[in-house]
């Protein structure tokens, strides 16, 4: 009987050697540990044995069962592992295939740039102020110190609205966001006409000029102006504020310079140039070899404008500046054609 058991053990373990997948593993288990397997037959025949033989054979049978079960467990683990290894080596992707696209949305580049500018200005204490796009001559020009027929009007070709005879006050498309300066000053001054509060605002918005649409000129474009009005605001504050803005906008090492200029609604007026960030000031096509880029026009708010806004120029002073987000993008990305911005071609938009 003991011989039979060792025979059972040997043949079972031999058979297990050949097992290499889950189905043959299952077949082995039925054949060698199943109810009608030779080992189980030994157990069922234990009762027929003598009292003396029974413990010995029983023990031996139990030992064989334990050995076979342990061998089975080990084999099961091995089969699983090799199956996994096989699948790992078979499931190989071409990782160079493109990923599945997702339909995502994008903000228009002008909006993105406006946000950059307005975010910096917000941190510098300038709040957004918006106003209408169709204006009167009075708001767009006269109150900003452009009298009718003044030569300064040649600087801004204007689109007029067909609105009947209105004498010296025609309706027009605003040529700059500056009418917002008057709107804002009057709104702030109304809060306390005897002692108007200080103002720090950013004026973003769409402006219009009677210009042909070409690679270099547009009939419609965005502008952002900044305006600070208060007591004791000086030209040196203008310089300090705009240099800080330039550092935030173009990098802490951006060099700037101020040139005298002329705008009817500021005096003294200045253009701020930033050292060309394309060539680092060495001279390139973007800066027309000058090493400088014209970034913004600025100046101390003209006393007539302060007066028209309800701020006494003998007590109050301030400064204003204006810039074009599209122009900034054109310089930053070397965009040669301004028409892209209103062209809405997805091949342009999807690059931002």
């Amino acid at each position, binding site marked *: 009987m003991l011989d039979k058991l060792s025979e059972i053990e040997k043949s079972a373990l031999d058979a297990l050697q050949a097992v290499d997948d889950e189905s043959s593993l299952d077949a082995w288990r039925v054949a060698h540990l199943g109810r009608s397997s030779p080992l189980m037959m030994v157990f069922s025949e234990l009762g027929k044995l003598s009292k003396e033989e029974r413990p010995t054979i029983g023990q031996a049978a139990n030992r064989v069962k334990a050995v076979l079960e342990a061998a089975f467990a080990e084999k099961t683990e091995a089969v699983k592992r090799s199956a996994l290894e096989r699948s790992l080596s078979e499931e190989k992707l071409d990782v160079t*295939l*493109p990923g*599945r696209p997702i339909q*995502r*949305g*994008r*903000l*228009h580049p002008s909006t993105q740039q406006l946000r950059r500018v307005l975010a910096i200005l917000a941190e510098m*204490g300038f*709040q957004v*102020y918006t106003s209408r*796009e*169709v204006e009167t001559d009075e708001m767009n020009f006269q109150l900003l110190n452009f009298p009718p*027929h003044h030569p300064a009007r040649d600087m801004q070709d204007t*689109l*007029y*609205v*067909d609105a009947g005879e209105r004498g010296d006050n*025609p309706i027009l*498309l605003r040529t700059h966001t500056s009418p917002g300066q008057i709107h804002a000053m009057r709104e*702030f001054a109304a*809060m306390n006409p005897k002692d108007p*509060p*200080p103002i*720090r*605002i950013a004026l973003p918005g*769409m402006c219009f000029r*009677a210009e*042909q649409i070409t690679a270099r000129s547009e*009939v419609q474009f965005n502008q952002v102006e900044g305006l600070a009005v*208060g007591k*004791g605001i*000086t030209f*040196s*504050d203008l*310089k*300090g*504020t705009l240099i*800080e803005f330039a550092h935030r906008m173009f990098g802490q090492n951006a060099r700037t*310079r101020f*040139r*005298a*200029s*002329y705008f009817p609604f500021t*005096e*003294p007026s200045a253009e701020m140039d930033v050292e060309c960030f394309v060539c680092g000031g*060495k*001279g390139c096509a973007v800066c*027309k*070899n000058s090493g400088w880029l014209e970034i913004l026009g600025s100046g101390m708010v003209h006393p*007539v404008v302060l*007066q028209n806004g309800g701020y006494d*120029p003998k007590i109050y*002073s301030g400064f204003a500046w204006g810039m074009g987000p599209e122009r900034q993008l054109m310089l930053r990305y070397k965009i040669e054609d301004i028409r892209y*911005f*209103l062209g*809405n*071609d*997805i091949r342009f*938009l999807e690059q931002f």
Partner: protein
Amino acid sequence: MKIPLSWLKDFIDLDGLSVEDIARKLTLAGLEVDEIQYVGLPMPGYAAQDMHSSERHEFKTSGIAWDRDKIVVAEILEVKPHPNADRLTLLDLYDGQQTQVVLTGAPNIFHLKSTGKLSKPIKVAYAKEGATLYDGHADGLVLTTLKRAKIRGVDSYSMVCSEKELGITEEHEGIILLDDDAPVGMPLADYMGDAVLDISILPNMARNANVIGVARELAALTGRKLKPPTVDRRPKTVHRPPSTVGNINELVSIQITNPELNPRFVIGLIRDVEIKPSPYQVQRRLKLAGMRPINNIVDATNYAMLELGEPLHAFDYDVLVGRTGSPTHKIKIITRSARDGEKLTTLDGVERTLSSMNVLVCDEKGPLSIAGIMGGAESEVTDKTKNILLEGAAWNFINIRRTAKQHNLPSEASFRFSRGVHPAMAEIGVKRGLQLMAEWSGGMVAPGLVDEYPLKPKDATVTLTTKDVKRLLGIDLSAEEIVELLERLEFKCKIRSPQNAKRKSSKRAQPITNYESPIMVIAPPHRLDIGEGVVGLADVLEEIARVYGYDRIPSTTMADALPPQIGNPVHEWEEHLRDVLVALGFDEIVSYRLTSAENESRITQYDEYVRIANPIAPERSVMRRSLLASVLDSLEHNIRLSETLAFFEIGSVFEPTNNELPNEPRKLAVAMTGKREPNAWDVKDSPALDFFDMKGRIELLLSGLRLTDVVYTAIGASTLRQAQGDAPLPRRALGLRSATYLHPGKAAEIKINDEVVAAFGELHPLVKEKYDLGDSPVLVAEFDLDVLRGIAPTYAIKPVPEFPPILEDIAVIVDESVAASRLEALIRQTGGKSVTNVRLFDVYRGDQVGAGKKSLAYSLTYQAPDKTMTDAEAAAIRNKIVKRLEQEVGAKLRS
């Protein structure tokens, strides 16, 4: 304004400053140099072999430098024939060192061929072998270096130069004939090397649109001395005795009818002029400044104008005498407004019809010229002119500006007069003009000037203190420093003693420490741009800052109080809206507000528009009324560029009012078309986007804005038809309900709190036909943002349930006509708080439910807030719901 450096040097010593130094100083002070054109002087970073040197030019630079060793003044001694070519000549030429034989084809010395040794040698610009010049025969400007060659058997290694070869003008027909006093052998660069500064003149700097103005600025900026021309100097060459020359006041009188339009009129007379070309150096300066030399008389008027800024006009004196009808009759010059329809032939030969806005210079017979703009043909200076009346006047700049615009006659004169020329310049200009004419023509200047000056401008006077400078510029300057800066620009300044000022300003004694010495500043008599009072103060402060130097002013931080924080809720809300839309996969576009009625009529007809009076093009002639039209334009533009397009725009549309400012309501328009999923290598045949794709995005959009209680209603064919009539709908709603561009079966309006905020759906097939929009349906939506923004959002956040929910699906069969929204509302109503979620997951039509019926399957979530709900409780609620659905809409539970 083009200013030759050599001309500037007549008035200021510029030694030690490079051309770029000068250009930089001017640029920083507001006289922006757009370009430096080198005409002979050495260029920075320039070497003949290395034109495209990468060395930084601070300014846009063009032109050519003349090699001092290789290009010199020479003289032609004799013009000999060429042995083998009729049209060429051989010159005996002395270059200061030796005599050379030089071959030329120049036509302007051809007539001297074979005339033997010249009695007076001709001075020319001579380029030797190895000199770099522009190729005179090439198109455009091409550099070339002179090399030895044989031309028709004769050795050629050098040349006499034309203006084109030296980069002065485009002229290359003849060689340059220099003035007789040009020193032979001198490097040409030393004799007449130049650089031209092209300066943009800002409107407030009209006084500087001339050489002396720029020189004055440079003098102020460098602290050097200005040397103004001495206009009263008598001409050196007086050939004839002055016997016939009487005082001009006996011959001419002036009558000004409107001093507002003509504050001053000055006339001088010069007799017995010889009309001939001006000296070469004069012609060269005029050409470099952008003017064409005509003859010595016309050139003198232009030269004086470019130099001083006062436009002059020369009349043929004898023509005017002839017009009086008698040689003894005194000429009477009258300035007056034109009569409507009056005619004058100007010197360009055009007969012009005038209007009463135009001012004329006339004699008793009629008009002679359009004041300040252009002379008349009849009294023009010709080759036969002997005697010249020279006019210098002052005109109203607005009137000149309007007249020049009306007749489309931009000229050098109108450019200056339309920006304002101080009347003081009229006299100086005439004197300088007469002086130049006398020098260049041999004429005799008649004694005296006729000078009518009825309206003298007030000298602008501004009083300021060091405190003003500190308060507005932020710099500490003493009164003396301020005076020094302003005097450089010829302001007259006086520091008034505190005592004087105190007496004047107040009788009460003030502590002396609080007192600032006021400085009285009087603007110089060539400036019209200095105002009075607070404006004058700003004007003078600008001059102080400019001369002091913007770069020397410190940078500071505002010390003033911070403003009240009012924010901009509209802007902030729209920015949030943009973020939500981008998260939903829409690309933002920004379109032209300017469009055409025809373009918008493709989707909606509007009778009224905000129309542009002076449109740049017909397709940009009105302000848009439909934002959706803008978005569809972009969809159309891109339709073949991507399989899926989803665009939105936020912006104003423009509703006209009766000749007042239009309304500018804010809108959101959305459009999308194409495949639901972008195609990929394993994603193919994705279905087209449809109504419910748009609706899903709108639902997310509105929940992103935290808006609840949103009601979607079919607009339907009947509503759309009604909208086409004049249904009495509120104005706002009308815009959206009249969305006739929508498919009548696939159109919905959105109401929140009973307000219509949007219409959306599929574009009507007939509308879509008018666009090039491909095959897929086009989904569009239009929101009225002014209404939407006014609806209060819900910010309540519910707690996360603590107890487990019971999930159950039920399907009910109803008639086709029962709206899904009705069923859901009934389920929610009946379930009350215990049903926390109702989600439709299937809609089935077919044999299993029968014709005219549909089955809707819902997934319900039962939930109790304070305990674990039991199956029995859930079943009870469900039974209630089923019963209610059966009663209300005849629903049957599908098993």
